[in-house]
Every structure is written in C-alpha cells, then in structure tokens.
C-alpha cells in the first residue's frame, strides 16, 4: 500500500474522486455530457484559462466525469494524478510527446503489444523519435541501448506474447541511474495484481478498454504519474523544465515540481493533439472500475483452474503462464505478482495450425475475437488470424507457434469454462 491513501483498492474503486452530486444528491457519478462550461463572469473565465483557478473550460482538456475516473484510478495506483485518453494507444502517444520531440529516443521491451510496437517501430520515427527494442530480461543489453538522447524506458508489466514478467525494481533502478523515467503498460495486471509505482515505475498507462472496464463496451486509456521522478534533475526534459511559449512561458517544474508531467500533458497534449476520452466512455469504464477488485479475484481463480486443466491435458504441449514452474520468470512472478499473473495467456496444441482452428470452432462459450480483458472469456488463434500471413518458421521467430491459442479468461462459472474447453479439445 502506498503511503498517502486511507483506504484500500476495493474501497477506492467505488469512492475515490467522487462526492454525491451537490445539486441533486445523485449517488452515482453523473455523466457530464457537455463540450463546455458557462463562465459566471469574465474574470473567472480569464482565470480558468490561465490556470489561476481549478475548474473546467472545454471537455477536450478536462471534464468532471473524466476527472473522477482520473482521480479514482490514480488513487488505486498510488499516483499523484492521471489523464483519461481516447484509448491506451492515445495514452502512450501522449506520454511520449510530453517527454520528447524530434531527436528523442526510447528504449522499449521487444515483448510489446502489437499496437505499441507499431507506434514505436513505424510511426514515431516519421516524427523523429526512434526506439531501440531489447530483451528486458537482459539488463546489460538494456543499459547498452541507452543513448544520450534517450528520454524514456518502456515495457509492459507482463510482456506479449510470452508473459515476460518485468523486473520493475531492477529496471527502474537502471533507468534512474541514467536519470530516465520508467513507464509501464499495466493493462494486463491492473492495480489489483501489482502497483508498479510501489516498485519503482514512474509512469503507468492502461488500456482501460480491457480489465478496468471489463465489459468490452468502451474504448479508453489512462496515463498516470507517480510524482516521484524529478524532471529538473537534468537537462533531458526541457518540455517540463524550460519556459513553454505555448502557455505564457510557464515552466512546468516550477509550477508544480510534483505534477509537472501531468500539467504539460494536459495543457499541451490534450489541448493540441486532442485525444481525449468521451465522458460517456469515462462513465462506462468507471462502472467496471467499481468492481475491479472482486472481478480480478474471480479472473484469477478461473485462470488458475484453466491453466491447471490445460497443463495436464494430453492434447496440449505447453502452457505459457508465469505461475508454472517452467516459465522463465516463475520466481520473479512469485515475488512481484503474488495475486496472479493476469487472465491472458497462450498454450500450444500438439497438432499444430489445423488443430488450433478446429479447437476454436468447437468452442461454445469462448468468443472468438481480437480483444482481451473482458468479463466474457475470449479466444483467438494467432496463426490463422492476426498472424495468418506468416509462415510457420516466421511464427516461431515471433514467439508464436502454429498451434498457439490465446485465451482471455472471463468470469463465467468455472465448470462451464472447463467443460467447454474439454469438449473442444476432445472433438478437435
């Protein structure tokens, strides 16, 4: 538990950032479906624009419903604040563009979600920001990849697709030794399974579309700041430590030594790039956040049962899950993720690509689609969908075998889930 919270995760998930509506006493958080806010007078209007007052001007920059979600998830993570974004990808982009411009460099894990990899590998270089991808299990390689122009170290808490467990204490120490921040994508773990800030991470983002929402109805992201990183300790972050002409020469680290990053991200990033979250999506994601604790507990119970079932099944050659002794990060997982290693994992069918396709077609409860982190159990066969153009050899190089199946375990009755898997494996 971080050191400024009076309540635990389940309580914060229900209450943080919100008071009953002062006008009508509404217990649920109202959806403030408005683009803009009436100024009581011209002086207040000017003060709001110049950050002399707290409040809202325009919903691209802030919105009362979004603000509750931001404070709530920040409280659950033990941070100093957050910014809700249009998607997890928008949160990643917002973080990068707040910290660096042309000439900037990122060292990222090679085990990333495909969308993040695309942004870093193909898109950001068009804007002069390069990324070196390395294996974060190899700290020497990570250190060697750091350049004078490096501005960010980035990884997922559980990497893709092999569920590499990020050694946050070791990687954050290495980053800090180079005066660099560590940002983690904690989408798969959520604050229920790990609090990355408590282990040394400086920034977190989530695709709130996944477990935070949990219902699969709303796209969204959130970017969070620990408040621990000293942005003015070096000259690496002039966007935060030098006057910004775009906001009356504000020096964000002087304005707020603690929340400088969030100030710049909101006042420039949301203002200019505009990838804000809809208040409807904020409300919907908030409904999921309210039950995150109990849901994640159930996700973990079901996942452990399914992992155990598959691991013992004769048709399965391998299950990749860090709680299993054969996973390379088994010990680290026990140390950092005692509550569980997420509800998304892969397993291999002995009989390859055809077996994978047949297995999926036989499933009745699992939904065949390209998402994870839903309350409903999901399945996809990468070799015949997301990676169908690749040869078997190329798939193996990417860590995906022809018989690899990815599951996202939901909240259904475990007997029904195991029964569904059993019949699909039997009839393949």
């Amino acid at each position, binding site marked *: 538990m971080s050191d*400024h919270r009076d*309540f635990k995760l389940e309580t914060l998930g229900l*209450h943080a950032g919100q008071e009953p509506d002062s006008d009508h006493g509404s217990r649920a958080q109202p959806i403030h479906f408005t683009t803009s806010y009436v100024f009581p007078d011209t002086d207040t209007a000017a003060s709001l624009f110049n950050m002399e*007052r707290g409040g809202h001007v325009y919903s691209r920059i*802030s919105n009362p419903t979004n603000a509750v979600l*931001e*404070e709530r998830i920040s*409280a659950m993570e033990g941070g100093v*604040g957050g910014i809700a974004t249009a998607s997890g990808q928008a949160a990643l982009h917002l973080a990068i563009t707040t910290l660096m411009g042309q000439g900037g460099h990122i060292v990222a894990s090679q085990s990333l979600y495909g969308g993040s990899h695309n942004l870093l590998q193909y898109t950001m270089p068009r804007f002069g920001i390069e990324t070196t991808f390395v294996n974060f299990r190899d700290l020497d390689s990570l250190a060697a990849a750091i350049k004078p122009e490096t501005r960010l170290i980035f990884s997922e808490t559980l990497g893709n697709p092999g569920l590499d467990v990020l050694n946050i204490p070791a990687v954050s120490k290495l980053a800090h030794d180079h005066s660099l921040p560590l940002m983690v994508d904690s989408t798969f773990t959520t604050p229920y399974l790990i609090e990355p800030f408590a282990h040394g991470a400086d920034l977190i983002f989530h695709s709130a579309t996944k477990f935070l929402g949990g219902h699969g109805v709303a796209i969204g992201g959130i970017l969070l700041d620990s408040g621990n990183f000293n942005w003015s300790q070096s000259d690496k972050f002039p966007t935060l430590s030098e006057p910004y002409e775009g906001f009356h020469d504000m020096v964000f680290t002087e304005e707020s030594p603690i929340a400088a990053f969030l100030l710049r991200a909101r006042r420039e990033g949301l203002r200019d790039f505009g990838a804000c979250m809809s208040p409807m999506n904020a409300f919907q994601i908030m409904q999921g956040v309210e039950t995150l604790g109990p849901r994640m507990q159930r996700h973990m119970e079901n996942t452990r049962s399914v992992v155990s079932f598959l691991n013992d099944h004769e048709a399965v050659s391998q299950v990749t899950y860090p709680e299993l002794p054969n996973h390379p990060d088994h010990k680290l997982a026990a140390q950092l993720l005692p509550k569980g290693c997420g509800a998304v994992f892969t397993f291999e069918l002995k009989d390859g690509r055809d077996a994978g396709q047949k297995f999926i077609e036989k499933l009745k409860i699992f939904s065949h689609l390209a998402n994870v982190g839903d309350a409903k159990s999901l399945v996809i066969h990468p070799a015949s969908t997301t990676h169908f153009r690749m040869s078997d050899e190329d798939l193996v190089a990417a860590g995906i075998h022809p018989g690899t199946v990815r599951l996202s375990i939901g909240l259904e009755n475990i007997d029904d889930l195991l029964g569904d898997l059993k019949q699909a494996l039997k009839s393949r």
Partner: protein
Amino acid sequence: MLINVDNQVTYIYTAAQRIHHDKPTVLFIHGAANDHSVWNTQCRYFSTHGWNALAIDLPAHGKTNGVALDSISALSGWIKKCTEILELEKLSIVGHSMGSLIGLELASKSKSIVNQLALVGTNAPMPVSDQLLETSKSKPALAYQMINQYSFSNRAKLGKNDIPGISMQGVSIKLMQRTKPGVLHADFVACNSYADGVAAAEKIICPTLLLLGAQDKMTPASRTKALEEAIPDSTVKILSGTGHALMAEQPNQVTDCLKDFLIGT
C-alpha cells in the same frame, strides 16, 4: 526568479512575471516541508490582477539553497532581508502554517513594510507534539505520512480536487518527501518554540485576515481566539469542511478570500 541571500541561491516563483515597483506586492510564505508550489493558483491570480505576486522558497526548501533556520525570528529576519534585496518598501504578506508565524513576526517587528497580513491555517502558539517532533527527527518519512493524515479533511481523503485529475494528498506527500534531510525537524522546532505569537499579534497595526479550515486538526480553528483578540484589526474567515491544507483542498475559495481581503470586493 533567483536572488542571492546570504550567499545562497534563493528561488522566488513569480508566475513568469517581472517585478514592477509601481504595483502592489503580495508575498506568499509556505509552511513546514513545503515549497512555493502550494501557492501556485493564488500567485497566478494576483499576478494577472495588478500585483507583483511572489511565492518564496524558504532556506533549504524547494529550489532555495542553504540551511534550514529553526526559529521564527530568524526566518522573519531572512524574509526581511529578501524584501530589502528586492527593494520592496511595502508589501502584503500571506503565510500558511509555519509561514503564518513568519508573517506574524515580520508584521510585528517591521510594521512599516507590511500593509496587510493574511494568516492561513494558523495558531499561536503552534505547539508540535513531542511524538511528532521526535518522529520528524528520527523517522521523517513516517512524519510526512502523519502530517498528510492530519492535514486533510475527511471529505478530501477520497479526493475530488478542484484541479482536474490531480490527487490532493498524493501531491502533498510527494512534495514533503522531496524535503532535504533535517528540514522538517528544523521547521517543527521553529513552530514549537515560537512562544511570542500573541505578544507579537498585539503589535500588529495592519489589517489582518485569519483564514481557517473548520476541520483543521493541525491548527484547529477553535484555538485562534487569543490571536484574533490580540490583533487590533482582525477578520476571521472559516472554510467549512476544510482541513489544514486549505490551498490544496479549496484553491478557489482561498483565492476568493484573499482577493476580498487584499483587493476588496
């Protein structure tokens, strides 16, 4: 801006404005283990409303170098020196907690330069419990947690900040955690040993505002009666549902109260 005081770099936040000697000046003084940033919205407001608005980092706090001073008298003298370096002949002082005692002392000793005085989250005397005093010396990290617990109202402990998306208690403790070793203890020694507050208050000739939080557990509003009665021209304003961290909990209301007091309605 940076100035040199006793051969030490001293930082003053000015909301990116220069000092104009034809404008009135308000100087904001922070409390224990804090820095200028606790005043950022108020400072920005006054800087666009015809004032020089300055928020200073006390010695060894924030971006100011040097050694923490462990007496209110010394801190008051240091502020006086800053005003001389800045060539400020008249100014209004706004101080929070320990900063309020510094303002009180300065206004009593240097009557001619203090036009107006606002004491925010104040008591005089301002005793610090033996336990907290000792903890601030031996286990400052624990002391920061204790202060953070005591400084916020029950309402604020679940958040809902006027500043969108920012955690009040989160920013508060992270700011304290950046305090240099020994500084919190020196600050508490200064507060605890300042026994002359009521006597100083009797000498104040400028209009004085006592701005208090109704749920303040650090400097309870119920204990300001002696101070209020001692100051000849005092006004008391109590913000409901607010703890000791008034600027964090109610930034807009604090600005409005200061505007009413310093500028007039």
